């Protein structure tokens, strides 16, 4: 399983992640990322890593 971590202190609510992978990330009303699924199966890792790379402030990591 790939584990997804979001650093809420860094997140600026640019919403890039929510657009790249809307099943994994959402934005709350204050403009902070919400991780909808904190673990995804290995076959989805590449797609979630690609979404994490679109974060301008490096708030997301996939382990």
């Amino acid at each position, binding site marked *: 399983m790939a584990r997804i971590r979001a650093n809420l202190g860094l997140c600026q*609510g*640019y*919403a890039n992640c929510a*657009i790249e992978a809307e099943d994994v990330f959402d934005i709350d009303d204050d*403009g902070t990322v919400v991780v909808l699924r904190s673990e995804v199966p290995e076959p989805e890792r590449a797609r979630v890593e690609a979404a994490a*790379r679109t974060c*301008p402030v490096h708030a997301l990591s996939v382990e």
Partner: protein
Amino acid sequence: MHARSVIVVGGSLAGVRTSQALRAEGYDGRLVLVGEEPELPYDRPPLSKGALRDDDVPVLLTEADAVQLDLTLRLGVAAAGLDLADGCVVLADGDRLPFDDVVVATGSRPRPSPWGTPPGVHLLRTRADATALRADLRRSGHLVVVGAGFIGAEVSATARALGVEVTLVDPLPAPMSRVLGADVGGIFTELHRRHGVETRLGAAVADIESTPAGPRVVLADGEVLPATSVLVGCGALPNDDWLRSSGLEVADGLVCDQHCRSTSDERVHAVGDVARWWHPRHGESVRIEHWTNAVEQAAVVAHNIVSPDRPRAYAPVEYVWSDQYDWKVQLVGRTLGAPVRTLGEPAEGRFAVVYGAGDGRLGGLLAVNWPRAVVAARRAVAGREDIEALVGALQAVGSRGR
């Protein structure tokens, strides 16, 4: 059989992200990143924002990252040309790097100041530019910003936060009005004035003079604006000059098909600010100078290099953000048409403006301090939804409060 070789030219956002995406796609051949700037790749958006306060610029790639990616860095040397017949990138120091594919990621540079850059007059693109401007701003005094586009507006906001007096000058009637239109731009005129910025909008600059007391900006109507420093932000030009001798089609950027491959040679790919490609949803060739575009285009180009038999077309929804005072400004899609609806209250600092595409369809959205509206708009533009559908969706997310 020789090992495959991909040379990425341009050591910044687009080049780094393409290199990373190539490895993520499973590319296991030789990979070289050539960059003119001697330092490790760094991120540019902070240069007009936080970096003018605290000099903190995030690095995009460390030496350790490069080792992990099996990426060879050739920093501090420019590419001088492409020898297509021989399949080589020719470096300024004479070195020749053979390629099977080459990625052009050389970005853009500020349009030169028509009035020169005497002492105290700045352009802003590199870390060194930001350091020089920051040093001038710390001496406080009075900054005149010529050009009220994104960078001029952001630097004005940052300078005010540092306690510097600012005068913002533009021949157009309002900040960012080239993108937002004059009416919506007017909301930003008010924003800057509220924060103590003097504005000279609709005012052409006749000259920037150098005096012992510092530079001064002379307007076409004769007014003279004395300054301690001046920032000239009049747009950017693509770094495509080095390709002119190659014979590739170059016209305000490297001209590419919808797969971001040069129209003249399929081995040559372009990413980021320098890429002019055929956008299938718009049905025209475009070039975009935004952060997110470089990142998304990098993923497509990497895929197309690894899987040339199944190439992906690149049809992004335009997206750019800008931070000005306590406003988080986000633009989605195209805002070149007419603004058709405003939701929320500009006076309260949380609102959105929906733009039409000219043909009655949805074009894009401006959102201020309203990230959920941005998510809705990006989906609506990508799905070619109509204006009313987006307005309905925005009213739904808006009603849940801030």
